[in-house]
């Protein structure tokens, strides 16, 4: 009796579970079909849009057409996408004409409306479009978005600020960049590169020299965005004063000025092998003939990378040619040093 009751319950559960799963499957398939139909309609609409607007945008690179077709509200997203795409590709007069075209089509208002929408895609497109339009009146809006929790929006806003008032924007961005763990250093480096060294150098140096030691590593990915001549004294200063291997490595990677040679030589004997690797590389760039003995000693380092970079540095030193290299190789007693020098000689085509 108990078995029968159990079996009955189980049977019903299994049966209705199966039927429920099949019904849900049918619903999902129907939704899939509807989505595909929607996609096809959207693609057709996009084709029509492209047929009309691509030639107009191409013409607008040189002159704004006298009359423009009406842009339906449902095509705004597509207009912004195509327009942003061209703006990302182009520089100079063409972008100014395209901006005039967008404003003539009311896209500045549309973009601001997009920024207010709930959809993240709309907000991103709207903000990116305003970034390219670089209108003074959007400064406050960009400033609001710089503090946005969403990293994508805040980084686009950072870019927008540099397009509107670069000199004022850079200090704001640098201050945020050391606070925001969710910002991508690659994106920020791109923004600073785009702003150019003239705009970045002075605020960067001012900011960097006031930064506490523990935050300096956060600025290292952006060293290349400032003028080389201004960068070298900063590196020289950090190489003398900073202790963190991360900072030392960052500085050694960028150092180009022989003024830093004493510090670099000292760091070739650093306890951290990552520092020794980059000190060896730096000696390859700025070292003198008298650094040969120091680099030869590094050929016997216990770390492969130190030996490898030291060998590369050795063959780059002034006065090092195939003959000198062979003589050096013959005089080496350490097999590790000999092997690595042989490898680098072949890599550089010196044998």
């Amino acid at each position, binding site marked *: 009796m108990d*078995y029968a009751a*159990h*079996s009955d319950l*189980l*049977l019903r*559960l*299994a*049966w209705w*579970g*199966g*039927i*429920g*799963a*099949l019904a*849900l*499957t049918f619903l*999902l*398939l129907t*939704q*899939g079909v509807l*989505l*595909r139909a929607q*996609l*096809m309609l959207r693609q057709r609409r996009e084709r029509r849009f492209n047929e009309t607007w691509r030639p107009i945008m191409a013409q607008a690179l040189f002159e704004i057409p006298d009359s423009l077709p009406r842009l339906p509200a449902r095509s705004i997203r597509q207009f912004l*996408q195509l327009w*942003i*795409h061209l703006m*990302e*590709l182009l520089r100079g007069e063409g972008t100014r004409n395209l901006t005039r075209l967008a404003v003539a089509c009311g896209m500045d208002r549309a973009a601001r409306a997009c920024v207010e929408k709930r959809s*993240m*895609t709309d*907000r*991103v*497109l709207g903000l*990116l479009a305003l970034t390219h339009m670089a209108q003074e009146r959007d400064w406050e809006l960009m400033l609001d978005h710089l503090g946005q929790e969403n990293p*994508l929006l805040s980084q686009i806003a950072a870019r927008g600020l540099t397009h509107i008032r670069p000199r004022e924007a850079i200090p704001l961005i640098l201050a945020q960049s050391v606070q925001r763990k*969710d910002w*991508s*250093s*690659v*994106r920020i*480096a*791109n923004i600073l*590169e785009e702003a150019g060294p003239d705009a970045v150098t002075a605020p960067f140096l001012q900011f960097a020299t006031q930064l506490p030691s523990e935050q300096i590593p956060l600025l290292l*990915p952006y060293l*290349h965005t400032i003028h080389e001549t201004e960068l070298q004294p900063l590196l020289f200063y950090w190489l003398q004063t900073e202790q963190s291997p991360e900072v030392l490595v960052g500085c050694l990677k960028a150092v180009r000025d022989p003024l830093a040679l004493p510090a670099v030589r000292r760091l070739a004997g650093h306890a951290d092998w990552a520092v020794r690797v980059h000190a060896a590389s730096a000696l390859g760039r700025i070292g003198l003939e008298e650094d040969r003995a120091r680099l030869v000693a590094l050929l016997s380092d216990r770390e*492969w990378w130190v*030996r*490898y970079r030291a060998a590369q540095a050795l063959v780059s030193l002034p006065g090092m040619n195939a003959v000198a290299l062979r003589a050096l190789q013959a005089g080496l007693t350490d097999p*590790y040093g000999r*092997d*690595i020098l*042989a*490898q680098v000689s*072949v*890599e550089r085509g010196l044998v």
Partner: protein
Amino acid sequence: MLQGLANAMQWLLLIYFLGLTLGYLLLNMIALHAVANSRASRSLDSLPHLYSGLEPPISLLMPAYNEAANIAGSVRSMLQLAYPEFEVIVINDGSKDGTMDVLKQAFALQPFPEAYRVRLPTRPVRAIYHSTRYPNLRVIDKENGGKADALNAGINASRYPLFCAVDADSILQRDSLQRVVRPYLSDPRVIAAGGTVRIANGCTVSRGFLQSIGLPRNPLVLFQIVEYLRAFLFGRMGWSPINAMLIISGAFGLFRKAAVIAAGGYRTDTVGEDMELVVRLHRIYRQTGQPYRIVFVTDPICWTEAPEDLKTLKNQRVRWQRGLMESLWLNRALLFHRKGGLVGWLAFPFVLIFEGLGPLIELGGFLILAAAALGGAISWPAFGAFLLLAIGVGLLLSASALLLEEITFHVYPRPAQVARLYLAMLGENIGFRQLNSWWRLLGLWRWFIGTKGHWGEMQRSAKWQSDK
């Protein structure tokens, strides 16, 4: 006795299918949420990209064993990838078919006096060559030791901080490296990233790159396409946001070299070296409390050839199941470990029950129910109801994967292709899945009795490949 066993089996099956459905639907929800979150940033993907100069250089490792027919084309396609700085290291794992000769001829290889570092022990390296035509190509010729051993040799010779393990027959998109490296650029905790692998059979491939997307005629491959969608779209897309993804496909995965070396490299005593490494990384990082992320890149960035005949497919599935069980068993300390987090307390037991022991429960359960029905302990309609439940749940999961594909990438452009996938979904759940469960059960058995595994050789048709 039979009545009691049948009753217990019915409850077990009911709970099993309920757990399976709820688990996968939950993963589906997480995947949908992740898709919605990434939609805004994906809208920027179509914009032109410039290199920032901050992309870390990558060593691409290609183990090759008896790949003479395809190796030159594969290496050429890898050399054409769009990425600022990368090297290609081909590891010839003691091939017997002239793979090394093909490589020497195609790429003008010369012996190279590399100061080779043995950071991971491997079978002896016979020689290292470099290409006089392509400065970023090197070839390691070593004694046969299996794929894991070959990868370890590649890691030893690699020069860059990230390495990408690629199967010699993988077809990558030109921007695959750019896409898979993105998680590393935005989060320094990332130690491994994998991408969606799709099936290339039926597609047109020219000079190692995908030219057009199509579907094969072979129903066996169509079934596998539905299966792959299910595995990648919500299997991995669902686990990744909660940092609990247990596998990165051996066909294409990007790893932080220092993390892999510290973990001991690939294990050579398992057939599932790709999964085992990922589970081990989870275990080590969890146990030591180090912050880390193992992430999944949703874009379809790697295409691979699926088996077209039953024998090859069976071998593959038996191997995969063994690999799965070995990976879990070797890292069983992670299961319910107090520092295990969501991996140890959710993903590990889920994968163990529904993927590891799933075939045993499904097939064993139905065999017992069939015996009970034959013996009169349960009625045939009761047996039918459980069969309906099993097929219904399978169809539901496949349909949700197809829907997710429609929402996200809609890779197959023509409606007729989508219709064929819907039809394939039926076949996949009625017949193929049961056959697959049988093969997986064999894999489970071979793991249990401890049969020694080997790399395995695949019958490749490569009908879709063209050198023109």
